[in-house]
């Protein structure tokens, strides 16, 4: 058995999600991502079932595994009680471990997620806080958000928030003791190492391309769109 298959079989999501597939297509028929992207969860499970390391490696380097929204609709329908969504989780993890994610546009967005959400969790104890949603990076939020962003402290006072301040209330600062505990959890469970891996593979890729990781490379993960996803 090759390295990739071995890693997959060590993954609890993968083992829970994959029994055997008869290619009925129920997962693809119910899949919201399959309606919008050039994406077919049945084919992914079939590729894994065939067990060809080369084919699976190609999959791990492709955009394909990053289209899934992990909504788990597939779990509710599969007549063999597979969960393609969990198979995808397993594939994503191996792609992250082996650094294959930097080969695809959607995969490279792992760095954006790590840089924004991952670091935010470690710095503040929140995935996202309002000040992180910069209007220039999120034009989809529209002019109302832009106004709120410019008047952030006043706005959150008016809606009885406690933005980044000590004490109780929504959006309060997480105290130092809780943050210590959070960091310990990340260290013990492998979360810290996992994020560092994303960072180092992305840095390598940025250096290879001669761009700065936190500037050019980071922006590229937001702006890049080949238009070949549908």
């Amino acid at each position, binding site marked *: 058995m090759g390295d990739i298959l071995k890693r997959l079989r060590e993954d609890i999501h993968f083992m829970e999600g994959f029994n055997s597939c*008869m*290619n*009925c*297509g*129920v*997962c*693809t*028929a*119910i*899949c919201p991502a*399959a*309606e919008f992207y050039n994406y*077919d969860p*049945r*084919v992914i499970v079939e590729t894994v079932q065939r067990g060809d390391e080369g084919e699976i490696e190609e999959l791990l380097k492709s955009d394909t595994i990053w289209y899934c929204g992990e909504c788990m609709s597939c779990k509710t*329908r*599969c*007549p*063999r*009680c597979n969960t393609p969504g969990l198979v995808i989780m397993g594939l994503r993890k191996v792609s992250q471990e082996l650094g294959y994610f930097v080969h695809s546009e959607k995969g490279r967005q792992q760095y954006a997620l790590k840089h924004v959400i991952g670091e935010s969790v470690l710095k503040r104890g929140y995935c996202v806080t309002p000040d992180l949603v910069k209007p220039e990076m999120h034009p989809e939020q529209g002019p109302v958000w832009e106004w709120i962003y410019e008047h952030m402290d006043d706005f959150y006072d008016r809606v009885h928030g406690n933005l980044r301040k000590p004490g109780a209330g929504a959006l309060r600062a997480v105290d130092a003791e809780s943050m210590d505990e959070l960091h310990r959890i990340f260290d013990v469970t492998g979360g810290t190492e996992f994020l560092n891996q994303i960072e180092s593979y992305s840095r390598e890729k940025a250096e290879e391309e001669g761009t700065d990781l936190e500037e050019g490379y980071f922006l590229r993960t937001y702006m890049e769109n080949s238009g070949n996803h549908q």
Partner: protein
Amino acid sequence: MHTVIIIGGGPAGCEAAYQLASDGIQVHLIEKNNETGGNLNNWYQLFPDRKNAQDLNKRLQEQLNHPGITLHLGMEPSRVEKDGQGRFSVSLSDGSLLEGDALLVATGFKTFDAKRKEEYGYGIYENVVTSVDLENMFRNHAIRTSKGDVPRRIGIIHCVGSRDEKVCNFHCSKLCCITGVKQAIELREMLPESEIFCFYMDMRMFGPGYEEMYREAQEKYNIKFIRGRLSEAAENREHQVQVKVEDTLLGRPLRVTLDLMVLLVGMEASNETQGMARELGVKLAPSGFILPLDPHYGNNLTGEKGVFITGCCSAPMNLTDTLNDARSAAVCITRYLNMK
């Protein structure tokens, strides 16, 4: 003279009764309904020869006129007991008592309750029917939507309640594939202008003439076969049924709007089959059907001495195999009685 008690008057029970009686054995045939024939009573035409199902039923009924056969219609066994000499006594629902030297269980199957696949909308959407409902429509020569219109696009859904862990049925019901082909052809004959689709995973054409019939459905009757299993259905404001499947041969998700959707319901052990198994201490297979002693040499035998099985109480079977199985059971029982 030996006596055999047969429980269940479907095709298997009827044929076994006739074969045993022809060998000079006294037969008591117990049937819960007021007529024999079982599930065959619900069928219009048979595959692959399109024979009228009621002709076969009639023939099986006529065989029961044999003087060696006593028919107990509208009766159910309320208790079965076995004494030390291997004789069975069966109490009937009217309080009478039958005695016999062997027991033949021929309690058959029931069709899958399509309401258990809620996402298919049977009993919820107006234009979703089962293959059994469709046979009834054929008999009345009226294929109409709930509004009384001619359905212009019809979808036949394979594997409803079969090969589906979600409803705890791992087994293949085997007959639905060819039933779908037969019903598609019958629909085409009645509705030459309509579009007819079959949504399938595998076409399991196991019997003689079946594969040829499937081919004919494609070549002569213009039935469209799409390889993809139904994921779910929804109803639109016109009460049409919108189905979601993947065309797995193209690798594309597909939505089709149907005027009528037919669910090919699979087969499960009947309640009477499971009840008799419990009463007699006979083992069930994981599929819920009665487990034969041996799949090759002992498929009419059970772990209980003197208790025999035949027909669809042990597995889904077509009529040809059911009638063969009944004759095979008769041979086993005759041999058992002669050795007694």
